[in-house]
């Protein structure tokens, strides 16, 4: 009955709720923004740069209102996000399938992984001329660049995550009768999930970088990158700044809010670092 005692003394730990909403965090961000805008305003008032080159924060804010009002910014954001999502999905599908094949066929995996690591360091912008000549100035040309920028990261992630599963899980599962697809579905995939998520987050950011670059160079009359390049053509600094802020905000929202939250949830469940 001693064993009963050991159980009653311990209580299940409360599940960690992840990062909580903290008022001091908000204050810090507000302070940081205020300082940033303050310095900007100061530099503007001192007149280091002519008005046409460096607008005031108020002018930039007015530009946001104008670009939202005439629909350019919302449509641009929508177009870019659509391209990003489609490109990323294609990368996941393609990279996932090739990654699985790499796990399945040893020789192919070995060759392909060194090839893919090489292409991982290849600058995405360098795919642009190739895409223009091969596909032309179209959405598909942009998608091609986005996929090329992220597909190898997905491939490597899938390959290494599945190969690095602790063998004890697979042994235990096989001993309990798991095999084939159910072993894959109920053991391999969940066991690889923590590192898969980290890889997907990286692939997403590669895709995002590539997208803006491709949109600036492969002109299709829509998208954030296109608006950015139009701003340069017309010496429209407020427009450039507004698009930059949008790009920053979108990247931040996806990385911090979606991927980080997902990662934290998985890590909390596994008991890996509650310390963010």
């Amino acid at each position: 009955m001693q064993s009963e005692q050991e159980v009653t003394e311990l209580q299940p730990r409360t599940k960690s709720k992840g990062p909580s909403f903290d008022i001091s965090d908000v204050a810090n961000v507000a302070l940081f923004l205020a300082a940033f805008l303050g310095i900007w305003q100061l530099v503007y008032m001192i007149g280091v740069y002519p008005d046409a080159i460096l607008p005031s924060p108020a002018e930039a804010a007015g530009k946001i209102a104008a670009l939202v009002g005439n629909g350019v910014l919302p449509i641009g954001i929508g177009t870019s996000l659509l391209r990003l999502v489609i490109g990323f999905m294609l990368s996941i599908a393609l990279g996932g399938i090739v990654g699985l094949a790499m796990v399945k066929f040893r020789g192919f995996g070995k060759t392909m992984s060194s090839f893919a690591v090489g292409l991982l360091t290849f600058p995405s912008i360098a795919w642009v001329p190739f895409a223009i000549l091969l596909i032309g100035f179209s959405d598909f040309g942009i998608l091609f660049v986005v996929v090329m920028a992220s597909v190898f990261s997905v491939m490597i992630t899938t390959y290494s995550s599945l190969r690095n599963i602790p063998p004890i899980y697979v042994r235990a599962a096989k001993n309990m009768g798991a095999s084939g697809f159910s072993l894959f579905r109920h053991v391999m995939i969940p066991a690889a999930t923590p590192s898969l998520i980290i890889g997907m987050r990286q692939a997403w950011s590669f895709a995002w970088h590539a997208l803006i670059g491709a949109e600036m160079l492969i002109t299709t009359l829509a998208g954030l990158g296109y608006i950015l390049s139009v701003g340069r053509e017309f010496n429209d600094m407020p427009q450039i700044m507004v698009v930059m802020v949008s790009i920053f905000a979108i990247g931040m929202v996806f990385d911090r809010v979606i991927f980080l939250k997902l990662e934290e949830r998985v890590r909390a469940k596994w008991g890996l670092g509650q310390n963010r």
Partner: protein
Amino acid sequence: MALIESTEPSGQKNELVLELRNVHKGFEYGGNGKATVDNNHQQVLNGINLKIKKGEFVTVVGPSGCGKSTLLNIISGLDQPDAGAVMINRKSKSKTNGVVVIFQEGALFPWLTVQDNVEFGLKMDGVDHSKRSQVATHFIEMVGLTKFSQSYVYQLSGGMKQRVAIARALAMDPEVLLMDEPFAALDVQTRELMHDELLGIHKTTGKTVIFVTHNINEAIQLGDRVIVLSPRVRNIKREFAIDMPRPRNPDAPELVTIKRQILKEFEEDFRHAK
């Protein structure tokens, strides 16, 4: 009492549940692999014969390198013998081969709750949800973890993890529970508690248990039969039947005698290895 060598064990029935017939197993080592014998071939098991009766509690003890893990992998079906046969008297139709392993590290799945971990094997067998949950609940209760059924693995202590592993194995209704140094990573007190608990479970469920350990005390405290493996003969060297009531005091004179003999076997192997 006790101290009869390789005679009949104290199993209730004489029905065989597992038999190894002349099992051989060896490994090839590459280049400068350790323990290299002729032609880089290292024989680990050299014609093992072993019969285990239903309901027996058999402990297997031996110094490191004696082939415990290899024997375990072969009995569990995770590895195949080079020659010889492993026969299991199976009753259930589960997808397992009737031998479920409890690993030293527990090998619980961190992405599942305690409940889902215990249900895992049944799920692989295609048992429906309500039946699964009923069986799992029963065995989680048996190991005293009902309150923790929705906890995740990291929230459990070492001893609790091994209890979940035991519940998970029992849920599959195996013919043989094969335990691979299951309590080696636990502190002494927890290990004692787990011994009591395991003996209680053995008594209530009547399961056949094969318990592999390098700890001589553990082996003689738990087993109806203690099997001593030797790395030198690569086979079973001796066997002791221990017909004493449990829980046993490892300092009882009969057990001390057996312990000395086992130690002597170990020392002999060690001398020859040098």
